[in-house]
């Protein structure tokens, strides 16, 4: 039943300064197969894809298509070898027609024969049963259609390997089904499809095989039917189910009789579906779930980071309105964002300026922290958190990831928050610093600070949290405390379903 092999990648290696992004990774795609590429953030999925599409050059390894070695130095090379990619964000031109988009850049003559192209486009669209017409302006079509047009363009360019990178993340259920139908049709025509997604259910709906990567290494390739969902999660996160039983949450459980610090009912934002949540004084809780499950979006709603749409919020029992970050800050809430570079550091400003930023904002425009005072604050936190920097005036962007993270932690600690939200504070930093941050979280809790701690490493959360809120597909699907706080239970709840 095995189809002939279409694409093989062998011993792929890719280095970035200081990191081995891919280490000896193999990947095989057969003709007429939908192959899911799975892994958490930083696993190496996107690096592997970028090598295949010529965005990155590999440092070692070999790529073969239909048994012949190919060299891919640019996206053009990839296209010539029959590899096409449809990205999450549409990369077509929304102001041109569907037909123009399908044929742009590959017209045979200088004269664009509009009618002819439209006819051709209609033919292809009809064959693929994509419900649009060549003459329509692409921007007027739904996102799903736009994506399908991108696929149709790829198919018409004789692509053998089609890469779909998170194609479903902005589609609704109906549109997803339409896309899946198209994928199955293409599969029947012998196209090999690499499907990257973080929606577990969708993987099982269409995929024949699953390849799992973790930390830049290959975990394995499995037929989808032989890999239960819960095991897939375990492989992505990197623990064997048996190893989990011993660990227990060491954060104190104060939920029984403690004072509630923050409480939200039906809180929703432009990014998060309505949810209920509360946290007690001195409690450490966690949000868990795979990437895209809505964990970050939920805590962003608490902080007012996205547009808040509704819900009632109480701080210390008093109803309050938190619609902007400054509101949250004034009520003693601090938030360390998931994406340090994008939402955290002000790269070109000094360590000192980055540390005092939040406090300065809370103090107000007309009460600047004096130079000497800010130097004292910076020195204090550089010492307490052992931030490795040449000086307090060094631009924070030139520090290592772990030290940048410590600077942002210092920024929030300086505001003496009552409630600190830490979204992936340990991502992409060295093991030593990870441990320091976890210790710091527990110490803060002892001092009566409430902490929400999010990490893709479940083990870290079990070590620090006394309560875990589990999310899947943007909904809270469980809340684990006490006895249930073990990896096996967490995995089961994350995976849901049959396990």
């Amino acid at each position, binding site marked *: 039943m095995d189809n002939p092999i279409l694409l093989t990648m062998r011993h792929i290696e890719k280095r970035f300064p200081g990191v081995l992004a891919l280490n000896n990774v193999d990947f095989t795609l057969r003709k007429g197969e939908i192959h899911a590429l799975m892994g958490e953030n930083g696993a190496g999925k996107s690096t592997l894809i970028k090598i295949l599409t010529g965005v990155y050059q590999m440092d070692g390894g070999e790529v073969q298509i239909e048994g012949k070695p190919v060299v891919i130095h640019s996206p053009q090379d990839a296209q010539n070898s029959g590899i096409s990619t449809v990205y999450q964000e549409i990369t077509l031109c929304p102001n041109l027609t569907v037909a123009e988009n399908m044929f742009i850049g590959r017209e045979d003559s200088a004269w664009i024969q509009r009618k002819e192209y439209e006819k051709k486009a209609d033919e292809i669209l009809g064959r693929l049963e994509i419900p649009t017409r060549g003459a329509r302006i692409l921007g007027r079509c739904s996102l799903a259609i736009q994506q399908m047009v991108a696929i149709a363009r790829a198919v018409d360019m004789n692509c053998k390997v089609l890469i779909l990178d998170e194609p479903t993340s902005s589609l609704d259920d109906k549109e997803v089904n339409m896309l899946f139908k198209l994928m199955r049709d293409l599969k029947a025509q012998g196209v090999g499809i690499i499907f990257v997604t973080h929606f577990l259910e969708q993987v099982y709906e269409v995929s024949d095989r699953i390849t799992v990567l973790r930390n830049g290494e290959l975990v394995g390739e499995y037929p989808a039917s032989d890999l239960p969902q819960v095991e897939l999660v375990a492989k992505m996160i990197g623990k064997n189910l048996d190893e989990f039983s011993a660990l227990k949450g060491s954060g104190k459980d104060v939920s029984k009789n403690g004072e509630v610090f923050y409480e939200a009912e039906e809180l929703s934002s432009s990014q998060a579906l309505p949810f209920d949540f509360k946290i007690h004084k001195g409690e450490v809780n966690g949000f868990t779930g795979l990437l895209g499950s809505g964990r970050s979006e939920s805590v962003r709603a608490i*902080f007012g*980071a996205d547009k808040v749409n509704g819900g009632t919020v109480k701080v210390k029992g008093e109803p309050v309105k938190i619609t*902007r*970050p*400054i509101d949250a*800050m004034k009520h003693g809430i601090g*938030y360390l*964002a998931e994406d340090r570079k*994008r*939402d*955290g*550091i*002000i*790269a*070109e*400003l000094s360590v000192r*300026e980055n540390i*005092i*930023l*939040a406090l*300065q*904002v*809370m*103090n*107000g*425009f*007309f*009460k*600047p922290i004096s130079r000497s005072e800010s130097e004292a604050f910076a020195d204090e936190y550089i010492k307490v958190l052992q931030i490795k920097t*040449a000086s307090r005036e060094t*631009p924070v962007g*030139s520090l290592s990831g772990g030290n940048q993270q410590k600077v942002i932690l210092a*920024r929030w600690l300086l505001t003496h928050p009552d409630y600190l939200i830490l979204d992936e504070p340990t991502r992409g930093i060295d093991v030593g610093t990870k441990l320091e941050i976890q210790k710091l979280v527990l110490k803060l809790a002892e001092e009566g600070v409430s902490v929400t701690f999010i990490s893709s490493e479940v083990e870290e959360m079990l070590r620090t949290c006394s309560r875990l809120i589990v999310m899947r597909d943007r909904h809270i699907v469980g809340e684990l405390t006490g006895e249930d706080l073990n990896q096996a239970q967490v995995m089961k709840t994350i995976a849901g379903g049959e396990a």
Partner: protein
Amino acid sequence: MNNKSKNIFGNGLGQLTIPIIAIAILVIFNLIRDPSFFSIELTHNNEGNSVLAGNLITIINGASELAILAMGMTLVTAACGGQDISVGAAAAIAGSAFVKILKSGDSISAGTVIIALLFACIVAMIFGAFNGTLVAVFKIQPMIATLILYTCGRSIAYWINGGATPTVTSPILDAIGKFIPGIPVPTPVIIVIIVGVIFKLVFRLTSLELFTQSVGINGNAARLNGINSTFVKLLSFIILGICVAIAGCIGVSRLGLINHETLLIDIEMDTILAVAIGGNNLGGGKFKVGGSIIGAYVIQMLTITLYAMKVSSTDVKAYKAVVIILLVVIGSPVVKEKFGKMMNKLRSRRAKVTVKGAERS
């Protein structure tokens, strides 16, 4: 090693390296060309005041409006990552408003001048707020947003005084535009110093500098730290508005008349250039107001040098362009990066040679 090269070219004095070198080269060039270029003498002007005169004074005095506008433009650039191209037109409006009040009474007293100044400031701040609202609230690209006022500003200035170009003469205006009796330094130069000191004070007494840089470097992070970036951007335009009013009033006082068509004509491009020569990133972020001031003097010195070399006024622009191309290219990130890489390569090659030598031995 990498850090070291970054320090030289990236930050600290780094930002001021290019403007300071530029001004140094101009000074040296002039000294070689004609040592008397920089001679300053005490003479008596028409009013009988003893005043300083010489090329250097002409340069510093002539760059006053440019320097003041460049200070405000630096803030707008840093916060919004774009420039206001309507400053010349807005200055014509402010100047017309200034003259309108001066002309309202029979005689021009000190009180009228102060009221006229305040009125001009308010008018310019309102137009600044208009530009700022388009940029900060409606998120229109600064250059497009200010294109509106750039286009219609001089017409508005025309309407204010009913199409006339009235002259205003008063010893008080001469004191603003030329010299205060008893002080040999031109008043516009003193005003530049005062405005510079006020900027310094505002940076000391408020968080303007930190907030502006944060918004300009990383708007997302600034917002998540509670900074109201709309307010910061709007504020930068309003502050520029005050600078525009001051520059416009100086311009009017110098000539003793308002000509809405020619007052500070084409100054917007020189202003942007001054900010760029000052080593400020036109895409926003970290800034140094001092750099822009030096940039303004570089431009003026270049112009006067060319005039001193008997270059005709039509040719001056072309020569200016050549020098500016050089300055801007040398200061560009590409050249900086290439230069840094070249230095690194040289170093690593040297390191390799030493390693090889060590292996052989």
